[in-house]
C-alpha cells in the first residue's frame, strides 16, 4: 500500500515547492483512495435537500468508492458502500429515487435503508435442497457504513473512526464562513458536471489559488468583479486543508492592472446588457465573492447572487468529474431566482469567469507531463499557510499541500 510514498520524497524546500510527479504517479493515485478518501477526512456527499422526503436515496462517492445515501422512514440519513455483500454488484443503479428497502438486481439480496443485509434469496434452499449453510453469516460482508455529519444542509461522510467531529475538522473560521452562505433552507435550481482532463489535485489548487482569479479570468478583472486590489482576505484553516477567500463587491478603482499591463486588464469593454451583473447584497456584508473549500474535494461558492456547491470525483489519474449543484433559498422570490439564474452565466462549464478553470488544470497536466522531477514554485506570500487580509498569496495552496502530505505520509 505504501510503495509510492516510500519511493518518493518531497523536496527539502517544503510547502513552497510541489514535485510534478504528484500529478502523474499511478501508485500515488491508488494510495490516495486509502489514505485520503477512505481515511480520516470528511467527504461531501450531497445536499440534504437532494433527499427530499423519507424513503429516498441517491448515489454519491467517497473518492472512487460508490456510495448510497438514504433517508429512512423516520427521516434519518444513512450512507453506505454501493456494493452487495454477496458477490459485489452495485446495489443501486439509479442516481436517485424512492425506496423502502434496496434489492440487489443480481440475486435479489435485500437491504434496509441503513445498509443492513435483511434478506438472502432462497437462503434456506428450495424443497430442502441447496441454500446457505446456517453457520454462514453474509451479514458480516455487508457494505461498509459511513459516519455522517450534516452541516447547514450539507451532508458529509467518512469511513474512518479517527475522523474528528466536523466542526473540529473545519475549525471555527471555515465553519462560520459556511454558515454565512448556508443561512436558510435550500431550493435546488439544477446541476451539471464537467469532465476535467487533469488530476483532481490540480483543480483543488486552482480553487485555493486566490492569486490566479483576477489574472486568468479576464472577464473578472475587466468588469471589476474581482481584482486583488478589491478589499478582501483569505482564511486558511489550522490544518491547512480548508480555505475561504472573499472580496467586497465595491472596487477601489485602482489601476494597478492597467499600469502593470496585465493581459487580463482590457480597456473599454463594457456589457451591452449590464443587468447580468446587477445583484442584491442578500448576505448584508457587501461581499460579492466568496470561494470556500473543504479538504479534500468540496467547494462552496458565492458569486454575487449565484450560489453553488461543487465537488470532485476522481475518474483516473488524469481525469476528474466536477459536479455542480446550484441553489437558492426556499424564501427566494421570483426576481431573486431570475437573478440567480442570470448570474449562473458566470459559473459552470460555460461560465464567463469559470470556464477557464475547466481548462487550466489540464494546461498544467500537459505542461508538466514530461517533467515529473521538476518543481512548481508556490511562493507568493512567502511560505506562510496562515490567513491573510490580502489575496496576493498562495497560502491556501500551500495549506492544501500541508494537509495532503500529512495524510499521505510524505
Amino acid at each position, binding site marked *: 500500500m505504501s510503495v509510492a510514498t516510500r519511493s518518493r520524497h518531497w523536496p527539502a524546500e517544503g510547502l513552497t515547492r510541489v514535485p510534478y510527479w504528484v500529478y502523474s504517479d499511478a501508485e500515488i493515485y491508488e494510495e490516495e483512495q486509502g489514505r485520503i478518501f477512505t481515511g480520516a477526512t470528511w467527504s461531501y456527499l450531497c445536499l440534504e435537500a437532494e433527499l427530499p422526503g423519507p424513503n429516498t436515496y441517491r448515489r454519491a462517492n467517497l473518492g472512487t468508492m460508490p456510495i448510497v445515501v438514504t433517508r429512512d422512514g423516520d427521516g434519518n440519513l444513512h450512507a453506505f458502500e454501493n456494493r452487495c455483500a454477496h458477490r459485489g454488484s452495485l446495489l443501486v443503479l439509479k442516481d436517485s429515487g424512492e425506496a423502502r428497502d434496496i434489492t440487489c438486481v443480481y440475486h435479489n439480496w435485500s437491504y434496509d435503508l441503513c445498509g443492513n443485509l435483511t434478506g438472502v434469496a432462497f437462503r434456506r434452499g428450495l424443497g430442502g435442497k441447496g441454500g446457505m449453510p446456517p453457520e454462514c453469516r453474509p451479514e458480516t460482508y455487508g457494505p461498509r457504513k459511513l459516519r455522517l455529519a450534516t452541516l447547514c444542509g450539507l451532508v458529509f461522510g467518512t469511513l474512518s473512526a479517527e475522523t474528528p467531529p466536523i466542526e473540529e475538522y473545519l475549525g471555527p473560521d471555515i465553519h462560520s464562513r459556511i454558515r454565512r452562505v448556508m443561512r436558510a433552507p435550500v431550493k435546488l435550481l439544477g*446541476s451539471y458536471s*464537467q469532465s476535467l482532463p487533469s488530476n483532481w489535485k490540480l483543480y483543488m489548487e486552482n480553487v485555493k489559488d486566490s492569486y490566479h482569479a483576477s489574472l486568468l479570468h479576464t472577464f473578472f478583472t475587466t468588469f471589476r468583479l474581482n481584482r486583488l486590489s478589491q478589499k478582501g482576505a483569505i482564511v486558511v484553516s489550522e490544518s491547512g486543508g480548508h480555505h475561504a477567500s472573499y472580496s467586497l463587491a465595491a472596487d477601489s478603482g485602482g489601476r494597478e492592472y492597467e499600469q502593470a499591463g496585465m493581459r487580463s486588464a482590457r480597456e473599454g469593454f463594457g456589457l451591452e446588457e449590464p443587468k447580468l451583473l446587477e445583484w442584491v447584497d442578500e448576505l448584508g456584508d457587501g461581499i460579492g465573492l466568496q470561494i470556500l473549500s473543504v479538504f479534500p474535494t468540496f467547494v462552496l461558492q458565492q458569486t454575487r447572487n449565484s450560489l453553488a456547491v461543487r465537488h470532485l470525483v476522481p475518474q483516473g489519474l488524469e481525469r476528474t468529474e466536477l459536479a455542480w449543484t446550484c441553489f437558492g433559498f426556499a424564501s427566494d422570490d421570483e426576481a431573486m431566482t431570475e437573478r440567480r439564474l442570470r448570474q449562473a452565466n458566470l459559473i459552470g462549464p460555460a461560465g464567463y469567469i469559470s470556464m*477557464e478553470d475547466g481548462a487550466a488544470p489540464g494546461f498544467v497536466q500537459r505542461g508538466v507531463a514530461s517533467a515529473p522531477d521538476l518543481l512548481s514554485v508556490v511562493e507568493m506570500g512567502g511560505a506562510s499557510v496562515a490567513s491573510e487580509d490580502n489575496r496576493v498569496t498562495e497560502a491556501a495552496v500551500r495549506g492544501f499541500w500541508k494537509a495532503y502530505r500529512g495524510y499521505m505520509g510524505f
Partner: protein
Amino acid sequence: MSIDLQWKVANLNARYVAAIDDNKLEEWPDFFVANGSYRVTTAENFERGLPLALIYATSRAMLRDRVRSLRDANVYEAQRYRHLIGPALIGGQEGGEVRAQTSFMVARIMHTGETTIFATGRYHDRILLDAPETGEAFVEKLVILDSRLIDTLLAIPL
C-alpha cells in the same frame, strides 16, 4: 403541413449551425429577434423542472456580450464544432410563430485534430416566420443536452 414551412424551419437551423461551425459568431445573435431567448440546459434539469441553464440569455444584446467575451476575454484552446441536425418536427403555429423540434449531434475538433462527440440533444425552437430582414428568426431557442457532462468547457455556443 406545408413543405414550404418545413423548408423554412430546416433552412433557418441549417444557416444557424453553419454560422457557428464556420466561426461566424458575430452573425449568431442575428438569428434571434431582439428580445429572443437562448438557453442551454440538460435533459435532466429539463425533465425535473429545474430552471438552471448553462447559458441563459434573454436578449440579442446578451448574446452579443457573450460573443465579445469569447473573442476578447475568455481563454480556451482553438477548437471548432461540426453540427449535424436531423429533420425538423413542426409543432403548433400561432401568431406568425411556429414551434419546432430538431435533433442535433455536435463533434468538437481541437486544433490538435482530436475529434469527439461533444454534445447531442434537441433544439426546442419558437420561430417567428417572415421576419422583416432575416426572413425567419428565433423567438426562443432552448438547447436541451442529452448529457449532464461537459468535457472541459463550453465556450462556442451550441
